[in-house]
C-alpha cells in the first residue's frame, strides 16, 4: 500500500482556509452560476424540506415558514458570489434561513431567546422521564423495572415505515418549544451537538437534557403506537 500521494494525483480545489470536503460545494456553486437548472433542482430537493423545518422553529406556522424559505432562496442566489467556501454550502444556507426566520419571528413577536425561558414549558421539571415504570422507595428492587419495555414486534419494519413517520412528526410537534428545537436540529436535520448549542445559544449539558426529554417522548409515542396496533 502506498503511503504517499502519487505525483499525478488530481488536486482538489480547496478554498483558502476551507475543508477538502467543500470542493464539491465549490463545483456546485460554479454550476449554479452557470445557470445549471438540474444542479439547482437537486439542491432544492436536498435542502428545502430541512429549511422549512428550520424556519418553523422560529415562526408561527408552516405557511409563514414556506414564505421565509422562499425569501431565503432568493438570498442564497443573490449572495452566491459572496460564498467563499469557508463553511459548507449547507451550513451557509441554513444560516441564511435561520436569520430570516428569526427576524420574521421577532416581527411576529413570537421568538423569545431560547435561554430566556429555561424553566418554562416543562423542559426542566427534574425527575426521571419515565419514573412510574420503576419500583419505588420501600422496595428492595427500588429503581429496577416494574414495567419493563416490551419488544416491538417487527420493530425495524414498522418503526421505519411511512405510517410511523406521522407518529414521530406529531410527537415532535407536541413537544415544548426548546425540546422541539433540539430534536429537530439534532435528529431530524442531523446537526451535531456543537452546531445546535451555537444556534440555540444553550450549554452542552442543557442540550443533552432537552434532547433526552424529547427522545424519551418520541420513544413513548412510538411505543403507544406499536402496542395499540
Amino acid at each position, binding site marked *: 500500500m502506498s503511503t504517499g500521494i502519487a505525483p499525478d494525483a488530481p488536486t482538489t480545489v480547496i478554498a483558502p482556509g476551507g475543508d477538502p470536503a467543500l470542493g464539491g460545494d465549490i463545483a456546485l456553486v460554479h454550476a449554479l*452560476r452557470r445557470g445549471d437548472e438540474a444542479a439547482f433542482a437537486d439542491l432544492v430537493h436536498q435542502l*428545502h424540506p*430541512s429549511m422549512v423545518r428550520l424556519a418553523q422553529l422560529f415562526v408561527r406556522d408552516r405557511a409563514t415558514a414556506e414564505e421565509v424559505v422562499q425569501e431565503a432562496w432568493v438570498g442564497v442566489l443573490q449572495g452566491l458570489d459572496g460564498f467563499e467556501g469557508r463553511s459548507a454550502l449547507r451550513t451557509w444556507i441554513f444560516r441564511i434561513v435561520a436569520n430570516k426566520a428569526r427576524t420574521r419571528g421577532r416581527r411576529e413577536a413570537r421568538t423569545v431567546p431560547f435561554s430566556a425561558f429555561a424553566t418554562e414549558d416543562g423542559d426542566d421539571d427534574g425527575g426521571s422521564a419515565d419514573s412510574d415504570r420503576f419500583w419505588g422507595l420501600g422496595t428492595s*428492587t427500588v*429503581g429496577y423495572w416494574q414495567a419493563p419495555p416490551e419488544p416491538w414486534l417487527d420493530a425495524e419494519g414498522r418503526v421505519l415505515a411511512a405510517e410511523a413517520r406521522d407518529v414521530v412528526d406529531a410527537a415532535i410537534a407536541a413537544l415544548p418549544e426548546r425540546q422541539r428545537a433540539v430534536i429537530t436540529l439534532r435528529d431530524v436535520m442531523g446537526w451535531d451537538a456543537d452546531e445546535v448549542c451555537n444556534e440555540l445559544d444553550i450549554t*452542552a449539558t442543557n442540550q*443533552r437534557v432537552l434532547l433526552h426529554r424529547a427522545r424519551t417522548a418520541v420513544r413513548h409515542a412510538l411505543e403507544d403506537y406499536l402496542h395499540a396496533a
Partner: protein
Amino acid sequence: MQPSIEPQPADVADAHLHGAPQLTCEKLVDAITDYLEGAMAPDDLQRLELHLSFCPPCQLYLDQMKLTIAATGRLRAADVSAEAETVLMALFRAWAADA
C-alpha cells in the same frame, strides 16, 4: 401503592460486582442520552456497560431508543411540494437570466 410481590432479579446481586455502587435501571434510562452522546465519565460508563451486560430490559430500551433516533431521521427525507418547486425553479431562471 406498595407492590405485593417484589421481583428478585438475579441481576440485583450481580450489580454489586467489583464493589461498585450499583446502577439501577432507572439511572440507566436517565443516562441513556449521555451514553449515546459519549458524554459519560469513564467510571460511570463502565458501570452502565456492566449493567447493560446483564439486564435484557435495559438492552431492549437502548435498542428502542436507537430505533427511535433512526425513525426521527426518516423525517429528513421529506418531499418538496410541486408548487414550491415550480416557484423556486422560476426564481432560479429569473436569477440566471439576470446574471
